């Protein structure tokens, strides 16, 4: 079965075939024998790939994955052929732009709001300062844009996932 892995701006194509309790995986013209085991839920895996041993932490959210191997973190997306075709159709129908809600990555208290509605911001610009666990943390703009609205005020406590600022 064919799979497409999007990693950074690259798409890697793999073909997976069951081979006993292992998997034969074709990638870039090579074939590898892969034996993956879950060591402990939620996220620790052991993989033997042609006898090379790797441990990986893999968190899944739908078809998106965060993969930590040694000291490197990869964010990637896996789709099989069917899902890929489907999402290609959808992405043509709904181009990826428009509003973006910047949310609190953790619960905490708002120390300061550093932007005002209408302001244009560059990627990386601090929007809100959140305090949690004795530390102050700047919540930054994930992309260029204009501040459409600010949803919190200084002094307010917020829950994880609560919208702080809306960019457009």
């Amino acid at each position: 079965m064919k799979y497409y892995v999007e990693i950074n701006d690259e798409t890697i194509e793999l073909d997976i075939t069951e081979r006993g309790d292992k998997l034969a995986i074709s990638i870039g013209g090579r074939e590898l024998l892969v034996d993956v085991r879950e060591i402990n839920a939620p996220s620790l895996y052991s993989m033997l790939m042609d006898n090379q041993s790797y441990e990986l932490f893999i968190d899944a959210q739908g078809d998106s994955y965060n993969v930590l191997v040694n000291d490197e973190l990869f964010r990637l997306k896996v789709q099989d052929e069917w899902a890929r075709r489907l999402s290609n159709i959808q992405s043509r129908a709904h181009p990826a732009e428009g509003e973006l809600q910047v949310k609190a990555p953790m619960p905490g208290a708002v120390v300061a709001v550093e932007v005002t509605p209408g302001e244009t911001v560059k990627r990386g610009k601090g929007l809100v300062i959140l305090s949690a666990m004795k530390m102050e943390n700047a919540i930054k703009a994930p992309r260029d844009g204009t501040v459409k609205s600010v949803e919190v005020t200084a002094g307010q406590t917020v829950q994880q996932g609560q919208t702080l600022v809306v960019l457009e």
Partner: protein
Amino acid sequence: MLTSFRKVMVANRGEIAVRVLRACEELGIGTVAVYSDVDRNALHVRYADEAYNIGPASARESYLRIDKLIDVARRSGADAIHPGYGFLAENAEFARACQEAGLTFIGPSPEAIHVMGDKVMARQTVQAAGVTVVPGSDGPVSGEPEAIDIAERIGLPVVVKATAGGGGKGMRVVHRLDELPAALRAAANEAGAAFGDSTLYLEKYLENVRHVEFQILADRHGNVIHLGERECSIQRRHQKMLEESPSPAMDPRLRERMGEVAVKAAKSVNYENAGTVEFLLDKDKKFYFLEMNTRLQVEHPVTEMVTGIDLVIEQLRIAAGRRLRYRQRDIQVKGCAIECRISAEDPFNDFLPSIGVITNVYEPSGPGVRVDSAVFDGMEVTIYYDPMIAKLIVWGETRGQAILRMRRALREFKLLGIRTNLPFFLRLMDSPSFIAGRLDTAFLEKVPLLQQDENSVLKEVAAIATAAIAHRSKIISASRNQNAHKTDHSPWRTAGRRSAMREG
């Protein structure tokens, strides 16, 4: 005079509470823990002989409540209190409240805490004893004009600091004179909010310097010794992240000189118990008193590993009135020790705190490895307390061996369920500048550890493993839908077990 305590209360939580309880346990001293509502299942509660609830999660309503702590000590019949670090460890009022309640505070006198806690008074006191301090204002600065005068006198850059300071709070570095007024306002606000005291002073901001500190032990009988130094130049936002002993910049002659000055600083306040004198050390081996911490440091284990001396056990002995067991000439530094502060922070996302349940913990061990931790399977990391959850310490015959050992221990350390700064330290161990020992307090600003090129082999490994897992879970969920009633085990494990049975 006492020779030992019957029962010690630990007025703290987390790894340091466990560290102190371990020492008491090894001395056969009874132990009392205190806990906030969210800490009922915490390791220190289960470790102690007795445990008392002291209120809600917020430290202000529990771990910082002097009245509640003294009350628990009385009710439990404890005869001494160990404050750990943080919380009330450097609070003279708490030390005095213990005294007044007839309890031994395991630490220095309230007076010594008070003098060293006021950074301006500390500078004046040690200067009077002949110790060189970082150039700066003689006292608190009264306003903008005075600050500008001083900045011009000592030269830019300068650093604005809070007299009640600590932990990087109320601190601003100023490179241009016109930045000074804003820096004074910001620092005063921050200091006021953090310490309830917005008094400020100025110091010259020394560049290309190392943070080198000396461990002191002092008994009630006037004996003061040092246990060598720790290098703590690896800092992020003025917070130490990694410490080592000895310092790569040290030589025996310099250690002797700095050690003597450290002892002098301690004696200037009639210091008793364990304490730390912090210096900045420049390239010409000139050194300047920065401040004295009147408590056990987070990084005390590296000193323990190279000297073989258990500092908490010594703290307990000293507080019970016993004489130091060691003279200066008994102290020998053997090999090299390094500590990494493991925090629930995401190094790939600007070190944002990561909260959640740690489902499984695998702590490294084996030769030369020590973990001081309060982590356990199922522990919840909350927003209420410091994100540092464990300390990983290694010892090696040489600094090179210690670095290689730290590398393998970091690889072994696994904390499932949250993000940690372990990958950051792995990269630090591979940094040529770190390996060469070329350290200064701005190291982490200058060496871009987290922006290195990605490893194409690991990228492929990540892609293959994830595709394999996506494939397996699809197969499994398909078969689960067909056989929903047959099993409630993880199909992953079942698959593994089945194949083992078949091949076996």
